């Protein structure tokens, strides 16, 4: 005889159900998996599952020399590749107390800002797509292509740059670099108006993003949400202002702060940052001094034993590299404090009790890059 099983009547809490967003999902922008607990369409809580693209970069670093590590950092946050490279270079240069030539500083600052612009362009493109505006995607990628062309000319690569080396650059910039960069700035100043027309000024977009994913300044600090996401909550956390490196103490630029802390504020920060980045490039592009493109470096780079920490402002926020050296040519321990990792941690907190469509918008506004989380 079959045993009769009495299923208890589900209470309200038990009517919650789970869905898996990811690892393959259009709006997670990579292999992030979010286990979302829903009641109807309302997000009750969510748990991120990372590690689908974990490559053990920190372990790999323990076997690699410092110039080799630069090539790994490209693969971390693949949209701020120059800036990641910059962090390792600065770490080594500061540890060895090498003064890099002025020309290098100019070029690095321009490249970093171009990198920030293209990262924000791609973010804008995919954020528009997350909200259902597919045309944005093509606009963003069209303009980003121009920056990739400029890079291709000078650095030889479109995506994984590895252009900086400890002490300088791989090779000098292309003779047309300045001309093409200025042409791009002129072009993009016109095109960014289109961005504002098609998305920023759209009623549906503003209604979708206003008062969604509210994050106070205290929460942003506690969760370590840096970069444009943190500045959207009014937290002045720009490493370029607070711990200047390269030429950021010489150029004039504003740190964009918005106080609202919602998705729209985070969006506006990034839009305004594109203008600021263009402003920085404009100040530098005509004044690149002549000189060497690299300082004299030893063939084998060994850092003196000790601990080093280097912070830079990547397109996503505060990128930190913590390095313990025992005097060898490879680091003893290398830790990357990546901005997306900390930014992800607040996703659960700010998307509770909102609709699943809002979750997608919030995830887009935090601008997560999954390899940056997993490393």
């Amino acid at each position, binding site marked *: 005889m079959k045993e009769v099983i009495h299923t208890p009547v589900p209470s309200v809490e038990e009517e919650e159900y789970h869905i898996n967003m990811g690892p393959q999902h259009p709006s997670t922008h990579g292999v992030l998996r979010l286990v979302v607990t829903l009641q109807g369409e309302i997000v009750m809580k969510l748990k991120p599952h*990372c*590690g689908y693209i*974990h490559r*053990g970069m*920190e*372990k790999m670093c323990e*076997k690699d020399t410092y110039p080799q590590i630069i090539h790994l950092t490209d693969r971390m946050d693949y949209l701020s590749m120059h800036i990641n490279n910059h962090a390792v270079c600065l770490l080594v240069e500061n540890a060895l107390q090498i003064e890099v030539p002025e020309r290098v500083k100019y070029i690095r600052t321009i490249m970093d800002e171009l990198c920030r612009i293209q990262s924000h362009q791609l973010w804008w493109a995919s954020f528009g797509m997350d909200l259902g505006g597919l045309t944005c995607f093509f606009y963003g990628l069209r303009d980003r292509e121009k920056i990739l062309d400029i890079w291709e000319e000078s650095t030889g690569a479109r995506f994984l740059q590895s252009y900086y080396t400890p002490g300088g650059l791989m090779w000098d910039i292309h003779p047309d670099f300045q001309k093409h960069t200025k042409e791009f700035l002129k072009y993009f100043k016109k095109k960014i108006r289109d961005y504002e027309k098609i998305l920023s000024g759209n009623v549906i977009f503003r209604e979708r993003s206003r008062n969604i994913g509210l994050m106070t300044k205290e*929460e942003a*600090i*506690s*969760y*370590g949400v840096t970069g444009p996401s943190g500045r959207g909550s009014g*937290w*002045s*956390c720009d490493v370029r202002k*607070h711990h200047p490196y390269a030429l950021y103490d010489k150029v004039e630029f504003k740190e964009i702060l918005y106080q609202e802390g919602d998705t729209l504020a985070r969006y506006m920060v990034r839009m305004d940052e594109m203008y600021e980045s263009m402003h920085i490039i404009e100040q530098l592009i005509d004044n690149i001094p002549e000189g060497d493109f690299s300082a004299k470096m030893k063939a084998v780079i060994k850092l003196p034993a*000790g*601990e*080093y*920490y280097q*912070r830079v402002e990547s397109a996503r926020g*505060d990128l*930190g590299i*913590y390095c*313990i050296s025992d005097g060898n040519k490879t680091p003893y*321990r290398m*830790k990357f*404090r990546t901005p997306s*990792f*900390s930014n*992800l*941690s*607040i996703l659960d*907190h700010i998307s509770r009790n909102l609709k699943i469509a809002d979750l997608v918008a919030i995830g887009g506004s935090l601008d997560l890059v999954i390899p940056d989380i*997993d490393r």
Partner: protein
Amino acid sequence: MDLEKLKERVLTLVPEAEFEENKQFVTFFVPAGKLHVTTMRLKDDEDTAFDYLFCQSGTDMGKYLMVVYHLESTKLGHAIVLKVKTEDRENPAFDTVCDIWRTAEFHEREIFDLLGIRFNNHPDLRRLFLDENWVGYPLRKDYKDEVNIVEF
């Protein structure tokens, strides 16, 4: 606050802390048992006000396991480094700080995942990157993996 004053202020708040010389930041070793109290005081005290944990990393130093806390004050602009260590390699454990800085929740999960250091009172201490049934802790120096790590 200049570094000398900061050092003295921290030592008055936490007399047990050991100062480490010649570092980039003001660095202290804190006894493992005092970690939670120390961090709490450092955050709440008005002269230190370390409200931003900008990096938390674990390290296998060979003799001992170490967790490093990089703290910054967003109001006052100064930074400090706290370290805790344990020589227990079988069952290392520290108090969690994720009730003080929420960002520590993920960082501690990462450290648990890769170094096997447990954090007491952590709300959700699971592996973050690796499989639940992964054997060993890859960032430890004595970790052996003949399949994935090629020795030269």
